[in-house]
């Protein structure tokens, strides 16, 4: 390329870098006039077009450049971005393969071709390319690339299990063929070991690890040492491992808990099962001897370390627990004594409760003894350590409360005690800067948990009002306490005050990957609270924001996988790939997608465009193998083991949605959209750009989609609320009823394609790629003339006709109960039912369609159903608006404050409670009014 041209192209790059895609296109057009054949300018223009969503135009340029079989580095790089933007990873592979074929001595092109295969998840061809590169360029690195590619292929979900071992054997053969030993590089060594482990070649692994180099590597590399430990265990070398671990604990002062676990495992390895009773009793004696030894070891460590490290003390406890489970205990009181000792020494650390939890499941005598010990902890405190000790004793005691101790009176007494101690404890932290947490926070959380339980016991809302008042107070004293916020978020949702939940959620500053693990706190069943129907897009925006992370994942993670190859960090590659997969196929991602859809159709007019787009996306999602990355453990649980956890207790509608919920809603919407859409599989095939998701070997997925959509799986349905179940049944009956009419009326694929081509050309000025209109024209001529008679019109099913009457009854059953959430739930689902009805009947809006297909009687029955639905919904709408008028009033605030007797005292005063009351009732007013008016709007929009 000439220097002059080079200079002229630079501004295009600048424009692309700053996302000024428009000016990039203008600059490209200008240059293309002079250089109409230049592949780089074309590629850059294609990139600018993709980035401005002009897919059709971009496709044309993209294919032009591909046809020129580029080998130039700049062109290839630009095209890589274009193809990525279009989701055409497989074409990217072809492009690089073609280039590499033309310049077989270009090592960089070889590497790029390899990476393109890695990005597309094509491990097998990646492996072949790496092997070829190794032969050609004689770099050990390429040999290891081919090794790990074989391993990746073995682990891929699409690889049948019978192939696994074969591929690992291949990887092994390749590794041993290396001229340099794997231990020259920690990560090669790691890869080598993991192959040996998989093939159960423990002897070989042992030899490597036992060498001086092997030992040296394990001493500094945690990941190699992790593998080593695993291999020792698999080899049955727990005695040897125990000795090594003991040496590390004693000589090197290593306090990694894994070492202690090794000693423990070794201690009980003497109990190997044996059929011969005599030898088994001698095994017992042998084991008991070792128990004594280990006890002495741990005791010594515990004494040496004092409070500096808890390992010794905890190891003593773990040892005793295992001794008991093997029936070797000699002192029935020892366990509780050790627990007491632990509490004496570690009771003033925040983690004491967590540490002791595995040992708390005590019974009878033990429990009585432990309880009376814990109760003896002094309730007065003057230091942080005493306060922490007291908090730990509360948590420990609460954990073991039985149902007879969990009466309303007893729980009320506990709240009072916790609150009193909480306020007392705040004084100790009065001087702390606002960035620090109060130690006393946990007492507020304990009190909050008890209040939640009181609500569960009595169904009386006042307990939740007390809880939010207390927790709101706590947050003013400890602004960074995310635990307080998490509990508040949950309770506000139960109370039907979603805007307050949102405030706290935002205050936590959820970012990046946390959206995947934590957005469930806000977005689970959020369509219940969405005001999208009134044009308020708050929750829709939250949905979209939370899904940004999936975009970054698909754009960035593969780059780091490639980087891990160049830096030869083989230990990371499978981890990165698994990470990418977990995020890409995240359950939360698609739950949010469905929630978003449910909000969207209440906001945007339902058109065939929306139906088509959503249909394609939902079908993709339906084929995914999902991973549940949601973090439910984050919310601190201080409920007794006899009760549900705080997480379960505070779930909205008491139901946790998961795969079953997702699958049920996906089936419902895919089926409805399929009926409403003209895109059948052949059309979709032609219109879709980019690769499809990988298919698992799971036989489930080979059942035809149509059948899968009809499956009704009871287990899945347990995740649904009763209201959702009614909705599902309604949707199913509706779809069953209308299916024959849709199938009969839907235009043939050729007509649909011709229409799509016409629209595309009108919109973009370019014909639709890959669709031969000429050929289609031949087909379209016969349009409209069907051989069969239209299906006879049948009466609408009961489930459909009665659905809205049923809703009416259910609504009057829940309206006016203290929290509005049930009423909102019934109302939003009923609204969704009307929207679904609109989706299902859109096709029959066209008078000519009805006439040609003789479906007049069918359309007449739609009218009856719709007008009944609208009448019911209008009543609900009016009722919600009326309820909202009663909220946010002085009366409601007073009632709220009157119920807050438990928490109101000298510190949390009447005014504070009044302020919280105002926030809660105002929030309720807002959501009731919004949903109410929104339902009205939807009725108006779809009245005919």
């Amino acid at each position: 390329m000439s220097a002059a041209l080079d200079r002229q192209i630079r501004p295009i790059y600048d424009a692309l870098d700053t996302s000024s895609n428009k000016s990039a296109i203008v600059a490209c057009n200008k240059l293309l006039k002079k250089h109409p054949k230049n592949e780089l300018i074309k590629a850059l223009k294609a990139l600018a077009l993709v980035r401005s969503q002009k897919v059709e135009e971009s496709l044309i340029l993209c294919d032009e450049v591909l046809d020129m079989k580029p080998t130039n580095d700049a062109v290839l790089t630009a095209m890589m971005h274009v193809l990525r933007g279009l989701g055409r990873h497989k074409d990217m592979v072809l492009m690089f393969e073609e280039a590499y074929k033309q310049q077989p001595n270009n090592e960089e092109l070889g590497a790029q071709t390899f990476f393109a295969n890695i990005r597309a998840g094509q491990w097998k061809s990646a492996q072949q390319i790496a092997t070829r590169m190794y032969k050609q360029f004689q770099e050990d690195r390429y040999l290891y690339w081919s090794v790990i590619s074989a391993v990746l292929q073995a682990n891929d979900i699409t690889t049948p299990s019978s192939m696994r071992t074969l591929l690992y054997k291949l990887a092994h053969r390749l590794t041993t063929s290396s001229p340099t030993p794997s231990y020259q590089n920690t990560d090669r060594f790691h890869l080598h070991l993991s192959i040996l482990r998989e093939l159960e070649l423990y002897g070989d692994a042992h030899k490597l690890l036992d060498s001086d180099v092997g030992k040296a590597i394990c001493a500094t590399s945690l990941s190699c040492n992790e593998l080593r430990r695993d291999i020792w265990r698999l080899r049955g070398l727990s005695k040897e491992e125990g000795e090594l671990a003991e040496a590390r604990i004693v000589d090197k002062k290593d306090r990694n808990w894994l070492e202690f676990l090794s000693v423990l495992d070794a201690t009980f390895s003497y109990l190997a099962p044996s059929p011969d009773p005599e030898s088994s009793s001698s095994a017992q004696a042998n084991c008991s001897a070792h128990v004594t030894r280990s006890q002495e070891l741990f005791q010594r460590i515990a004494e040496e370390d004092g409070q500096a490290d808890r390992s010794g003390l905890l190891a003593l406890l773990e040892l005793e627990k295992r001794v008991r489970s093997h029936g070797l205990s000699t002192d029935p009181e020892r366990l509780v004594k050790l627990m007491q000792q632990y509490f004496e020494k570690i009771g003033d650390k925040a983690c004491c409760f967590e540490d002791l939890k595995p040992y708390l499941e005590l019974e009878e005598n033990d429990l009585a003894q432990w309880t009376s010990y814990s109760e003896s902890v002094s309730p007065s405190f003057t230091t942080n350590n005493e306060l922490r000790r007291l908090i730990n004793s509360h948590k420990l005691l609460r954990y073991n409360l039985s149902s007879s101790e969990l009466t309303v009176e007893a729980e009320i007494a506990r709240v009072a005690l916790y609150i009193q101690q909480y306020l007392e404890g705040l004084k100790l932290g009065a001087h702390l800067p606002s960035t620090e947490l109060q130690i006393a926070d946990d007492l507020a959380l304990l009190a909050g948990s008890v209040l939640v339980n009181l609500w569960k016991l009595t169904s009386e809302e006042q307990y939740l009002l007390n809880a939010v008042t207390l927790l709101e107070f706590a947050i003013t004293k400890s602004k960074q306490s995310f635990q307080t916020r998490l509990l508040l978020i949950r309770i506000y949702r139960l109370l039907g005050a979603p805007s307050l939940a949102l405030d706290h959620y935002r205050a936590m500053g959820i970012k990046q990957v946390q959206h995947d693990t934590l957005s469930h706190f806000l977005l689970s069943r959020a369509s219940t609270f969405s005001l999208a129907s009134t044009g308020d897009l708050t929750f829709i925006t939250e949905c979209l924001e939370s899904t940004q992370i999936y975009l970054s994942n698909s754009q960035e993670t593969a780059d780091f996988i490639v980087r891990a190859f160049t830096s030869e960090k083989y230990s990371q590659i499978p981890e990165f790939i698994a990470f990418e997969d977990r995020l890409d196929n995240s359950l939360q991602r698609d739950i949010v997608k469905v929630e978003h859809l449910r909000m969207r159709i209440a906001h945007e007019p339902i058109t065939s465009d929306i139906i088509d787009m959503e249909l394609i996306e939902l079908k993709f999602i339906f084929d995914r193998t999902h991973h549940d990355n949601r973090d439910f453990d984050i919310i601190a649980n201080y409920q007794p083991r006899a009760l549900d956890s705080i997480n379960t207790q505070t779930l909205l509608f008491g139901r946790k949605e998961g795969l079953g919920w997702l699958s049920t809603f996906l089936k419902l919407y895919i089926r409805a959209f399929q009926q409403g859409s003209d895109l059948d599989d052949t059309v979709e095939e032609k219109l879709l750009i980019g690769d499809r998701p990988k298919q698992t070997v799971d036989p489930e997925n080979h059942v035809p989609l149509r059948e899968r959509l009809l499956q009704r799986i009871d287990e899945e349905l347990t995740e649904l609320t009763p209201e959702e179940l009614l909705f599902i049944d309604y949707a199913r009956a509706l779809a069953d009823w209308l299916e024959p009419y849709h199938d009969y009326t839907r235009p043939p694929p050729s007509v649909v394609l011709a229409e799509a081509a016409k629209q595309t050309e009108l919109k973009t000025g370019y014909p639709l790629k890959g669709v031969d209109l000429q050929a289609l024209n031949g087909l379209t001529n016969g349009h409209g003339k069907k051989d069969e008679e239209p299906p006879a019109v049948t009466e609408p099913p009961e489930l459909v006709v009665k659905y809205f009457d049923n809703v009416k009854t259910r609504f009057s059953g829940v309206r006016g109960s203290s929290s509005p959430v049930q009423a909102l739930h019934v109302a939003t689902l009923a609204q969704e039912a009307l929207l679904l009805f609109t989706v299902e009947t859109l096709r029959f809006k066209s008078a000519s369609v009805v006439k040609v297909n003789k479906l007049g009687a069918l359309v007449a029955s739609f009218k009856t159903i719709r007008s009944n639905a609208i009448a019911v919904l209008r009543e609900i709408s009016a009722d919600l608006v009326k309820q909202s008028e009663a909220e946010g009033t002085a009366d409601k605030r007073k009632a709220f404050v009157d119920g807050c007797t438990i928490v109101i005292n000298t510190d949390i005063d009447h005014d504070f409670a009044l302020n919280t009351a105002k926030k809660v009732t105002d929030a309720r007013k807002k959501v009731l009014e919004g949903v109410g008016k929104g339902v009205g709007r939807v009725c108006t929009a779809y009245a005919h």
Partner: protein
Amino acid sequence: MSILRPFKASDMFKFNNINLDIWTETYGIGFYLSYLSRWPDLCCVQEAPSGRMMGYGASSISIRCLHMTVSHHFRKPPVIGKAEGSGAEWHGHVTALTVAPEYRRLSLARKMMGLLEMVSDEIYKGFFVDLYVRCANHVAIDMYEGLGYSVYRRVREYYGSMGIGKGGRDEEDAFDMRKPLSRDPNRRSVRANGRDMVVSAHDVS
């Protein structure tokens, strides 16, 4: 008492109890992946027996100009890309060190720092280890001093504001703190009056 193990990419799904803390930033996934793709042996996790993450630490190895002329109000632009020059030195850089609130004061940070220093010293043969910390983060600064680190310089506006007000400069500015390793027995990588040495953020990144 905790399990010390390598940090894995999937730990990003588990670190909420640590990262919801105000002093701990949650970066884009590229941040963690870029460290893991280069220095996996410098990324570690402390885990409770229950599987709950207690804390993690990550560091990197880099070369940076050591003898930059730094004065109170004026500094020359750094020499770009002069890594191979005589003034450049290998060192380990601690990028993230954090422990969940409920597991603090159990020596976890001390142990992770020990591991990161050991690997920087023995495997990467670095001269020193350095790190950045908000000037307002007194707990951390005191701890690092206790572990043998000293302030090398103050970096203006290294961090964005935390949006909690009051702290002013101390919130946005960072101390660059350093500790010499065995290859620097004469302690040439540290100095006594580091708190008075002020540089601006774009001079160091």
